[in-house]
């Protein structure tokens, strides 16, 4: 009994160590790192657009943002299509969860006009997106709290 328990503990430890290691290896050898980086940044950009439309109470624009989110998701699928099957499957699974979470925000915006409730749902979607980003190396992950590069976030030019 004691031996079985220690064997199980060793196996669990090996699994615990090897899983992230295998994942890191797959990530380090991404076939199209630039395309992946662009796709991840686009997901963040559209997520921020969701937030902006909700806070500006432009609820009718939210479904349009969802359409763009699915396009950014397609860009990520396309950029990871040549990756090892195991890694690709993990990406697909988490991407599906993230897209589902943003769809929920979009569907909700058709009836709900309470900004706080919509923002709470959006926060859940960001969490799902962060779980997706965790699959990629840290230097490729865009910060979901930061706006996209360019003038974004610096606000309006001399208006």
């Amino acid at each position, binding site marked *: 009994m004691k031996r079985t328990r220690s064997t199980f503990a060793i196996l669990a430890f090996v699994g615990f160590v090897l899983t992230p290691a295998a994942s890191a290896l797959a990530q380090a050898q991404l076939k199209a790192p630039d395309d992946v980086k662009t796709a991840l940044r*686009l997901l963040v950009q559209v997520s921020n657009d969701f937030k902006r439309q909700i806070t500006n109470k*432009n609820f009718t624009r939210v479904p349009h943002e969802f359409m763009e989110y699915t396009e950014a998701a397609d860009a990520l699928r396309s950029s990871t299509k040549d990756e090892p099957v195991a890694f690709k499957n993990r990406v697909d699974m988490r991407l599906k969860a993230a897209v589902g979470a943003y769809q929920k925000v979009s569907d909700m915006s058709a009836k709900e006009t309470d900004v706080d409730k919509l923002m709470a749902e959006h926060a859940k979607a960001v969490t799902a997106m962060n779980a997706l980003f965790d699959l990629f190396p840290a230097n490729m992950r865009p910060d979901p709290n930061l706006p*996209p590069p360019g*003038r974004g976030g610096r606000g309006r*030019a001399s208006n």
Partner: protein
Amino acid sequence: MRLSRRTLLQCLAAPLAAWGCGRKRPPEARQVDLFIASDGDFLAFKPDNLTCPSGARVRLTFHHGGKFLSARHNWVLVHPGQMEAVDKDVDDNEGIVAKDDKRVIASTPMCDKGVTVMTQFTAPAPGDYPFFCSTPGHGECMNGVLHVIRS
């Protein structure tokens, strides 16, 4: 003394020619070509600062450099202090700018990814003029400044 018709014409033409040569021709407006694009699919202009001399005839070419997202973009130049108001006003019209909007100096048509459009205008008085994309929700991030300098 009888003057021939030819001599008479020469007498009249000489002072007219002298007067005409002395007049300055109005300066022709300088033609300036400016190029700007969206930063791929990102909500930013590249470059986000442009410069031209006042009074120049500006031909601005805008390219939608996107590949993935179906978002449409345009380039709208407005008088200082008017960007936010124009941006807000066109929200209900899918970002389409009215041609008779006095706050707007120039604008390109909305375009889809990969498309290039153009607009022409006379550069206004020296100063900094904001430009932005009027697609609803884009102007907040996608904007820049045209620096008009003395010619």
